[in-house]
């Protein structure tokens, strides 16, 4: 885990849950800090034991097949529903709304600019993306990022129906994740960044 500990004093009103989360982040970070010193200079993938995360089909030399999709909570209804709560608490909903998008792109459709695999979505959340996706790395503990990943993927029907959320506490604004048909992921032809002259 890359270390990033320049948190501004985030002011907030309400949301005790968030305060607890941030406290958890702080302790997780201090644990990582030691590790970061030990592993300085070692490539990220190696230090985390993750296979490479790719954004493209094209590879130099003979293509190495992607490892099968992985990531915790993809088959865990509890984790997905936690992810849904976090999705609103971390204000993902403020930019992506309930999946239809607004400031950020839709998350309930088939289009993925940066990849639909769990590890791609993990990176979208932690690293941020250049055209306005904030980098949540170091602000949410990894376990909760994986819960968010699982929930985000359920929005376009990529998880099993019995795992995806079947109800909302708030005003009904979209078909439930459970009844959303699986949208076969396609790489978005026009990422926002390519719209510029």
């Amino acid at each position, binding site marked *: 885990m890359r270390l990033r500990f320049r948190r*501004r004093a*985030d*002011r*907030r*009103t*309400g*949301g005790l849950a*968030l305060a607890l989360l941030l406290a958890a982040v702080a302790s997780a970070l201090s644990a990582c800090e030691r590790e970061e010193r030990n592993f300085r200079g070692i490539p990220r993938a190696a230090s985390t034991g993750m296979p490479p995360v790719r954004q493209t089909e094209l590879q130099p030399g003979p293509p190495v097949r992607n490892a099968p999709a992985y990531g915790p909570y993809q088959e865990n209804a509890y984790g997905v529903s936690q992810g849904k709560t976090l999705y*609103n*608490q*971390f*204000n993902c909903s*403020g*930019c992506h*709304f*309930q*999946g*239809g*998008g*607004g*400031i*950020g*792109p*839709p998350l*309930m*459709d088939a*289009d993925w600019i940066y990849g639909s695999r769990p590890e791609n979505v993990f990176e979208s959340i932690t690293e*941020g993306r*250049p*055209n*306005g*996706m*904030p980098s949540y790395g170091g602000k949410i503990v990894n376990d909760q990022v994986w819960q968010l990943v699982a929930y985000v993927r359920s929005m376009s029907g990529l998880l099993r129906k019995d795992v995806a959320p079947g109800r909302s506490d*708030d*005003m009904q*604004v*979209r*078909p439930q994740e459970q009844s959303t048909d699986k949208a076969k992921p396609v790489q978005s032809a026009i990422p*926002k*960044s390519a*719209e*510029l*002259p």
Partner: protein
Amino acid sequence: MPAKNFASTRYSSLDQITTDNVKQLQLAWSFSTGVLRGHEAAPLVVGSTMYVVTPYPNLLYALDLSRPGAPLKWTYDPSPVLASQGVACCDLVNRGAAYWNGKIYYNTLDAHTVAVDSRSGKEVWKTKVGDINRGESITMAPLVVKGKVLVGNSGGEFGIRGWLTALDGESGKLAWRAYTTGPDKDVLIGPRFKPFYAQDRGKDLGVSTWPGDAWKIGGGGVWGWISYDPELDLIYYGTANPGPWNPDVRPGDNKFTAAMFARDPDTGEAIWTYQWSPHDLYDHDGVNELVLLDLPIDGQVRKVLVRPERNGYMYVLDRATGEVLSADPYGFITTSTGIDLKTGRPIAVPDKAPQTGKVVRGICPAAPGTKDWQPSSYSPRTKLLYVPHQNLCQDMEGTEANYIAGTPYVAAMVKMYAGPGGHRGELTAWDPVARKAVWKIKERFPVWSGTVVTAGDVVFYGTMEGWFKALDARTGKELWRFKTGSGIIGQPVVYRAPDGKQYVAVLSGVGGWAGAVVAGGLDIRDSSAALGFVNAMKDLPQATTKGGMLYAFALP
């Protein structure tokens, strides 16, 4: 300046194009901006050059009007930070530039103001005025008054603290900054402050009308229009909605959000204020245009300002004192029953107040109000105000609020739909003296473009399907139309080119909050997308596609 004059009338005294010959209007030339987001700007004509500001990435193009086809002279690229796209609530728009003393001034999405040499296209100065990590962006067109560039921030959906800032036009240095919320010394309230209504008098109301420190993240941006009266030497501008939208977390009047100020342009001192929507419940920003007119009222000519307000009322205020002279509905309203002229406060309908965890239905007007940013025009010949606006209602629920700097702070779920009649847009010709609509045009989609009116008694405006239309200013009869490539949400302008001919120009390129469903490629299955506007615009993707293009028309 985009509003044509300090009084913001958008009236052109050119009269070559008339109600008789406008049907012969032809496309003279066009220009692709190469940008696909919502084009809300007014092209600016200075001498023989036209200046066009695009949505993010906020390019400035200079076109040579003295040569056939208006070829490109130069392009200036301010290279705004990419991440600023994440802090713009409602598409990546820009409302245009202003000219003063050989320089073009405009704002960039990443909260900078730039001055560009109008001849060479070289940057003269660039000043950082806000911080995207606090949720600040800028979309408004600046106004230059007495050598000061007036600029305000956007970000009422991001927990910003609103301000209006004056920069020195030559150096770009900060002259003064007036906050919307906070202690009097930050709001620039001093001995000269004399608001008309009692509720606006008192010490540090920008703090005491909020719970705790909520004023620090209470919104009240300044992203709309500024007018100036040189005789009274006062500038006028409105302040945006309080944050978050969910009103439960901010009991109190939330001063001075959803309000307006009259200030001294040299020092920024507040002279008076008036609050359109105390403790705003519906995102009814108070930033629309303020048209400065001298009107006969009760047999006496008075210096007034006319304001088609988001909350649904057409206000006429005495612009010297801030007294409300009249306020009449110009659209369908369920949230209030009128404005109490004694106190200046709206008479609220308690049933329509949104609450945490409860869905309130049939809120009219919806969050964008009866009218949003799209500016009106006024003709001294017909004595009518031509008001482009929408006809929308909504359901709304307050949700839990979490402030995390740099992310949205809205805490509400909204779902908008067409108001009574089923049409979503209207153009109303309003008589501010008789206080009534003289005629109305209905449009399928919100009329999100500005209007302009000429001495030939022709009104121009555009529709979100892409039609650019000319109307008879007296009757509202349609006289001419032209189909542009994309929906129109820009501000049409009228000018005389070096060839002596009268032209009318407009940017086409759908987007903005109303057009976000197309500009952002949003998914219409989520009714709450784009703050609930998508629900009302599900058929827009069938009606138009994106793409920025400038069109200039003239008689043959």
